């Protein structure tokens, strides 16, 4: 496969990536870990023991969990050179669909997991529509998922009549409220999704194909990868993650709302890009995305602890994104110029 990839469009990119993939990603992840540690030191210096307490770390992780699961799905789509702007809206729609009276009644009669299943199915369904539009309809990913972003939010508002739907299914809430081994269930789910995502991207054919499609779709097609089927599968995966995140949001807030997940697509993209996944595709890192999510959650926590102004946090977030991408470009050009 690599021999077929090399002579195609950007010829030097594929071999360079192959040769430098491991050390490069190690260096990048190390950089993120250093950034996170630096952030923790800032947190400790400015907020002291309040930052270091176990409760506070649990708070950071619980906040990170929902966006984290969305970001894992997003990592796959971006690695394959796509983008999914609809994840926030799909999360909202999933939270609404899974908390309708009908779903809750059915969950009460059968099993609480019906709620989770519904949310996941809604997410996967939206992802399927995205994927088919992009792969077979030849609609640009940006436009197709933009349409889904608007449409899913509207549908959520229609179903809920813009009202908040309270979850009364206590078994569902109790499950998610639990903390096995002292770690909240939402954090366990995030960890599990991240671990599965890592295996899928780094240790399976599916993952290698994803990277190949992102690096050069034409070359991937010539190498015998069914690019269109693969693209559909990727958007379904991303939608599935958004749906699961919708169920997690439902558990965290005990209520479904059409406003859930507003602008989460941007949070997820920011975390993925800061993590080191190339926005143009061809390189992806789950560990980086997890670290990216943690960096933004820790940042938000430190600002809250220090009672800082309303807008400074957004400015800092913007600065972090720019610095991270600038550094990435330096890495990328270095690995290209040194054969």
């Amino acid at each position: 496969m690599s021999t077929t990839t090399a002579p195609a469009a950007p010829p030097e990119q594929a071999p360079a990536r192959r040769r430098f993939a491991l050390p490069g990603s190690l260096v990048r992840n190390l950089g993120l870990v250093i950034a996170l540690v630096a952030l923790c030191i800032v947190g400790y210096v400015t907020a002291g023991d309040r930052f270091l307490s176990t409760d506070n770390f649990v708070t950071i992780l619980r906040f990170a969990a929902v966006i984290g699961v969305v970001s894992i799905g997003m990592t796959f789509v971006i690695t394959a050179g796509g983008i999914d702007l609809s994840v926030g809206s799909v999360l909202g729609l999933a939270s609404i669909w899974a908390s309708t009276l009908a779903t809750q009644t059915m969950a009460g009669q059968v099993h609480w997991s019906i709620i989770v299943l519904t949310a996941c199915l809604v997410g996967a369904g939206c992802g399927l529509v995205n994927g088919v539009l992009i792969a077979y309809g030849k609609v640009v990913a940006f436009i197709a998922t933009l349409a889904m972003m608007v449409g899913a939010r509207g549908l959520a508002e229609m179903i809920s009549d813009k009202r908040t739907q309270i979850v009364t299914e206590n078994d569902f809430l109790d499950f998610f409220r639990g903390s096995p081994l002292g770690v909240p269930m939402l954090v366990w789910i995030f960890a599990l999704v991240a671990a599965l995502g890592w295996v899928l991207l780094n240790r399976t054919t599916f993952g290698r194909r994803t990277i190949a499609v992102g690096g050069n779709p034409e070359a991937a097609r010539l190498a015998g990868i069914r690019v269109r089927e693969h693209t559909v599968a990727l958007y379904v995966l991303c939608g599935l993650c958004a749906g699961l995140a919708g169920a997690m949001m439902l558990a965290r807030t005990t209520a479904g709302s059409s406003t859930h997940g507003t602008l989460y697509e941007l949070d997820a993209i920011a975390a993925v890009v800061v993590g080191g996944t190339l926005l143009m595709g061809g390189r992806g890192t789950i560990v980086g995305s997890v670290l990216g999510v943690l960096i933004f959650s820790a940042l938000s926590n430190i600002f809250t602890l220090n009672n800082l102004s309303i807008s400074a946090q957004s400015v800092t977030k913007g600065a972090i994104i720019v610095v991270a991408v600038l550094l990435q470009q330096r890495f990328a050009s270095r690995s290209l110029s040194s054969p």
Partner: protein
Amino acid sequence: MSAPLTLRRRLMLGAAGLTAVATLTAGCTSNTPAPDPNQTTTAAGGGGSEGNPNSEPGDTVVIGFSAPAADHGWMGAITSAAEARAATYQDVDLRVVEGTNDVNLQISQIETFINDGVDAIVLLPFDGAALTQVALRAMEAGIVVVNVDREFSDPNAARVTVLGDNYGMGVSAGRYICGELGDNPDAIVAEIAGIDSLPLTQDRSLGFNDGLATCGLDVDNRVAADFTIQGGEAAAANLLQAAPQIDAIWNHDDDQGVGVLAAIEAAGRDEFFMVGGAGSVNVMEAIQAGDTVLQATVIYPSTQAADGIDLARLAVQQRSLNDFAEVEVPRLVQLYAPVVTADNVEQYLPTAFQS
């Protein structure tokens, strides 16, 4: 509730001119939050009312404050009024977190307050039901939770709840229009609502119908906007097209009212008078100047969270409202929706918000 009260006292003490002038200057020159000049005046007057035992500093109270993003004037004023109110107390340490429309983030902010062991939390939730669980946890941790404006789905989640009166706004507007048009049973009344699917809009419209019914009037033309300026402009333009002759309009929200006025001016119509809603500075100034169709507005206080700060402080310090016989701070405070006209506008201008 106590904000307007102390204010009224202040006015009686003769600070009226000073306060009004200060607010006007602020309104004309900058984006300074409206309550600021008012608070400066209060501080200059000695930090609260003289002879009020509750204005004496007590044990320091750490209050965490969280509200949705300031995406319209009223919501912006909620936070700035709360900050200004807290600044007048030496014994209040206010922690304000980033305003957000993301309930996930707002929950984690409240969790941080719980971890920090604050004494009280004043919370205007983006979504009352979604924040109920974390508020319950805060109450279980012994923190005084003051719920402002959007109610939790469980009354146990708050020690004090401060609410506006949406139904009352509608009644006030309806009764005022009755007072102006009551002798004309054929008068054409129009209504420009906010986001129609929200319960608060339904409450306002219900109240408006009930208010108008006291003199046999009803709503002839009704349109709904979305609390934004462009939404107000579009809805009003349609309304003016649909109704060639109108006698009175009630517009639910002064933020969208900027757009409504623009549409009215573009259409060159002035055969009617208009009543606003919520009570912004520019609407009150227009009422004062009397050079537009705006004749009145009904208030939905943007000082609710400031009242929340007062009540949280008193509840933590185990004081009572000293004009009440009751020993404890009340469980529920619902604010009144008065009508502001040219006659009483000076009284309300200092607590108006910048849209």
